């Protein structure tokens, strides 16, 4: 029933027309075709699915959206992450169509590929094929992963060859027009010993406009490579956000992955990190700030597949209005992953009694010599705290902002990029409402 309803605008005709415009290698066409069939077979998830128990998408109508055909003319919103940063390159896309990009010759000449994924895959298909075929995000996992795998366009690629250290941050800016659809896909590959910092952010054209984002992110951090990846979603509060995200971190490699989740009407994000080689390290930081009727659900997964790895996850959420956040965390330790050190923590700060935060940590451990811990706290800003600050000359608003920024300080302290801390602080400050 729901699959019939859902596909009105994502019809066979629309898909055929989309495919006719693509100039892509045959292996990619095959991946798209398979995913498209799967998309047609799958029903929309419902609350009967364990994964979706707490996230009601009955009001989401896929039929209201259509395949992104071309980038509309828009007034670009301000990008926050790149402010005051000397960039090595940037890309801008509107409704998952690349509209602008620049990349320093300094890095291009070292073999680094950076830009829109569809343009680069057309040019470097053979080189990128093995990474596509690793399918970090399983195209057949659910309706949304299938839709993204079949119909992604634009997208972002960063490929850093062996041993190259890109010491200037790179920036991806994805803009969503009013009522637009973004089916972006991000693929990051750091070969052995490579290093890079990628700052990705998304925004709506304005605070009121709605839209759909159904995306995927795949981060491949090979042996001894180091990646800092920041993903700030700062859409309006009317956007539907569905995403599958997965990182593979190889032996002695290091990933710092920071998520800022501020916008969207409803977000359902699966963020997974697999430590695939021994002595790999991953740090995951999550900053969530919600208001109104927002519903943000983040499922995180730390998968220890190899021995001596470390993963450290900290998600912090502050909630206003009648908003709701759901954090489901899982640490999975395979039998081979002895000497694992894994940590997950989730703290929630309620700014309204009507807000609700669900915190569901989980452990699945098959190895016997491991250290896995989790913690979760929930607190609220109380009147006495506000009063105290007000007796020191703070206005109520200013006091709330200060208490919220104090709450996030611990996770900000972990983020090693100053512009990111500042951008997050600013974006959060703008979203503080009267309480």
């Amino acid at each position, binding site marked *: 029933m729901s699959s019939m309803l859902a596909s009105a605008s994502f019809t066979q005709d629309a898909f055929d027309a989309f495919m006719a415009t693509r100039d892509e290698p045959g292996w990619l066409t095959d991946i798209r075709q398979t995913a498209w069939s799967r998309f047609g077979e799958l029903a929309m998830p419902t609350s009967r699915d364990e994964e979706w128990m707490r996230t009601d998408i009955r009001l989401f109508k896929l039929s209201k959206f259509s395949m992104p055909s071309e980038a509309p003319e828009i007034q670009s919103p301000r990008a926050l992450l790149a402010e005051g940063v000397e960039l090595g390159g940037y890309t801008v896309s509107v409704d998952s169509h690349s509209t602008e990009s620049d990349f320093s010759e300094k890095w291009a000449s070292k073999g680094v590929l950076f830009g829109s994924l569809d343009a680069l895959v057309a040019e470097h298909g053979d080189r990128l094929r093995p990474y596509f075929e690793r399918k970090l995000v399983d195209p057949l996992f659910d309706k949304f992963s299938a839709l993204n795998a079949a119909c992604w366009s634009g997208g972002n690629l960063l490929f850093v060859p062996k041993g190259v250290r890109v010491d200037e941050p790179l920036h991806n800016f994805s803009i969503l027009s009013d009522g637009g659809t973004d089916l972006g896909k991000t693929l990051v590959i750091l070969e052995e010993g490579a290093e890079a910092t990628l700052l990705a952010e998304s925004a709506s054209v304005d605070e009121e406009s709605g839209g759909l984002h159904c995306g995927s992110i795949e981060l491949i951090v090979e042996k001894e490579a180091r990646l800092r990846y920041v993903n700030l979603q700062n859409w309006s509060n009317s956007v539907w956000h569905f995403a599958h995200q997965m990182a593979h971190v190889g032996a002695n490699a290091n990933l710092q992955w920071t998520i800022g989740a501020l916008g969207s009407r409803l977000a359902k994000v699966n963020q997974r990190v697999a430590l695939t080689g021994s002595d790999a390290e991953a740090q995951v930081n999550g900053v969530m700030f919600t208001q109104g009727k927002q519903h943000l659900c983040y499922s995180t997964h730390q998968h220890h597949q190899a021995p001596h790895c470390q993963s450290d996850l900290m998600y912090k959420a502050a909630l206003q209005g009648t908003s709701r956040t759901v954090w489901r965390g899982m640490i999975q330790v395979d039998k081979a992953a002895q000497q694992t050190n894994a940590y997950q923590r989730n703290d929630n700060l309620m700014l309204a009694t009507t807000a609700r935060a669900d915190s569901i940590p989980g452990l699945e451990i098959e190895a016997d010599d491991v250290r896995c811990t989790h913690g979760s706290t929930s607190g609220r800003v109380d009147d006495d705290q506000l*009063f105290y600050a007000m007796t020191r000359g703070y206005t109520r608003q200013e006091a709330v902002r200060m208490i919220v920024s104090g709450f996030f300080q611990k996770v900000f302290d972990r983020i090693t990029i100053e512009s990111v801390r500042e951008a997050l602080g600013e974006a959060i400050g703008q979203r503080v409402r009267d309480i």
Partner: protein
Amino acid sequence: MPETLKITDLHVAVEGKPILRGVNLTIHRGETHALMGPNGSGKSTLGNAVMGHPGYEITGGSIELNGENIVEWDATQRSRAGIFMAFQRPMAIPGVKMADFLRHATTNVRNPDRKEGEELIPMRQFRKELTEQMEHLRMDKEFARRYVNDGFSGGEMKRAEILQMAMLRPKFAILDETDSGLDVDAVKLASESIAAIGQGTTGNGDQMGILIITHHDKLLERNAPDFTHVMLGGKIVETGGIELAQELYTEGYDRVRAAYPDAAATEQAMTEKDAIAN
């Protein structure tokens, strides 16, 4: 004409329960007042009501600052107008460094018309002042980098409150049991600091009007009260000089209770109600 904080026939209720039943108290800038009284007599309530705590409902009377009734003002307006309280139990604000907290606070109080986002006092000037005041209070430099009252010992909290008073340079300050939880040396230091700040010798030379709520004599050693007030059953029943303070902390409240049987009966009833409620 010195600046004046004037409390007239003040009635205050907490959660519908009357606590203050007609308090009259006038403090001029430059004066030191001691407020004494048994536990539960309403001393902290008076402090909170003067500061504008939303949980303390003013059911009658007025609080005037230089002739203007400030009962409708919120705590922000009152603090920016120069009224300060050192709390008995100050709140922790995790993640916010003492120095950052105070830089905003100091700017707001010294520049009462400041809107959020407008400029703060220059970092260099602020640092210099803060370091000076911390040296007066023999506080470790590290203190400025700690989170506001987060994990502070009782003594550290009290010293932090005095530090804030020194930085904010209020016109009127209420010190709510700033001596409790301090050892003898710490009380002595606190006492000296309050006196110095009160005289304006550490700041801009302006004197404060001070209301010291205390059970002990140590804080008053260096801050000899011009007036001592005794609170009983939500009212100030007696006002005297320093000799009254000396009598109360040596001999207790029996004489006062006997002299004011109505207030003593009210006190008794309030205490019993509390006992039942608890």
